[in-house]
């Protein structure tokens, strides 16, 4: 029994040392495959510009520092059809009526590309340290979140809902349905 265990341990050690590259490849493969099949219907895209600025004045430090970025990002909204199934559709062939129940629109993607972010202004007093790389990224992250959180106020969901309705009505009217009901719930 001990010999078997020893052999197993040795074999594992030898194999693991021999296949280090393949382990890394496997890890890389797994990381790359975090995504997968999806079914998201994007119906509206907003292009949003935002000034992201910080005036960092702290009471216990002499002097101040300021930074200002301009950014241009895109936000897409629509419906996630991954859970859409036969139960989501009710067809009344006698009345030639179809009712479709869809999920509420949501943000499908937000993109603030680095090339669309420009540092327009930065000022640091003599007694203060400049904004570090991590701090600059933190400022931009806050800007990104501020835009995403304001999605509802911007009215993107309302537009997405309207466009989904228009798209489905166009498709279904060509299928000779006289009455088309689109519900979001």
């Amino acid at each position, binding site marked *: 029994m001990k010999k078997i265990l020893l052999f197993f341990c040795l074999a594992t050690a030898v194999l693991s040392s021999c296949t280090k590259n393949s382990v890394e490849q496997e890890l890389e493969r797994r*990381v*790359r495959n975090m*995504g*997968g*099949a*999806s*079914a*998201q*219907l*994007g*119906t*509206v*895209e*907003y*292009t*949003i510009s*935002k000034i*992201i*600025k*910080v005036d*960092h004045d702290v*009471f*216990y430090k002499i002097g101040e520092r300021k930074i200002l970025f301009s950014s*241009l990002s895109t936000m*897409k909204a*629509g419906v996630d*059809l991954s859970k*859409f*199934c036969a139960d989501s559709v009710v*067809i009344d*062939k006698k009345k030639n009526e*179809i009712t479709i129940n869809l999920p509420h629109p949501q943000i*499908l*993607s937000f*993109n603030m*590309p*680095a*090339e669309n*972010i420009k540092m327009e202004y930065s000022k640091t007093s003599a007694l203060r340290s400049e904004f*570090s*790389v*991590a701090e*600059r*990224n*933190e*400022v*931009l*992250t*806050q*800007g*990104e979140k501020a*835009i995403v959180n*304001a999605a509802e*106020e911007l009215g993107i969901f309302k537009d997405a809902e309207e466009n989904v309705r228009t*798209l489905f009505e166009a*498709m*279904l009217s*060509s*299928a*000779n349905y006289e009455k088309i009901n689109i519900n979001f719930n």
Partner: protein
Amino acid sequence: MENKNIQEQENQEVQSVDTPQEVQDTQATQETQPTPANQEAQQATDPKEEQKAELAKKAGEAGLAALKGAGKVGAAAAKGLGKATVATAKVAGKAGVSAVSSGLVSAILPIALKVLLFTAIAGALGGAVAAVAKFVKEANKLEIADTPNVVEEIKKISELTTYTYIEEMVVKDTKVEAKEAGMLSFLHKSEVPDSTRSEIVIITRGVVRAGYDLAKIKDGDLKISNDTLSVVLPATEIFDVIINPSDNDIFVNSDKWSHEEITALQVDCKNRLLQNAHDNGVLEKADKHGKEKVENLFKTFGFNVVNVIQKGN
């Protein structure tokens, strides 16, 4: 051992004291109440000698009895004394223990109090320092100003995303910079200029979204005949290559990296992500999954037969 000696002494004292009394008592009894047997013995021999012998015999018996009694008394006394001694020892022991413990308590108490006091002060100081640190951290926290989100453009789209490719990437870069001349640089002249090596590592998570642009379906691409639908889907395409600021973890050993340098690295990272997505067959996968999704979608709309024709990539 001491107990034993004490017991013996007691016995001796009892013997020396009690025995004459017993004898006297017996003599007195014999003198006051002569018995008929004695009178006969007196008549048979020399009455005086016999009387003396008899008296001596009785005195001996009385002495023996007295000795026995004295022994019992002595033993009892010794037993009592022993018990008393043990009890006394116990009490003394307890007293000693309590004395020692009280001594220890009196010795430890001030130290314990001091330790307690020190701990309380240290705790209070620590708490105060932590509170100040937290306050300073809060005060030092970066907070962006509330600025408006300006909608520049609203575009109607019909993008059916059928595959999402996600990858975590590590980007490393190094740059070597000449050191700035210090105030005392004139003191040493070096042929090789001083330089600093600055490294940056960015761990980022990128997303690539691919699928069909349904807006590209032309009128002739969709044919309906009774319960049969035929649709020609456009070629799959990549809609977005996304790396946002929140997707980045940046590690640097110096903050000499400008915003432009970081941007260049991120653009490079994005290009690599796109290339990896292509190499991983993101468009083919989007096509494969997309066909199935579109078929199912149209079938739920009441079409029994759905023919999906893909233009391919």
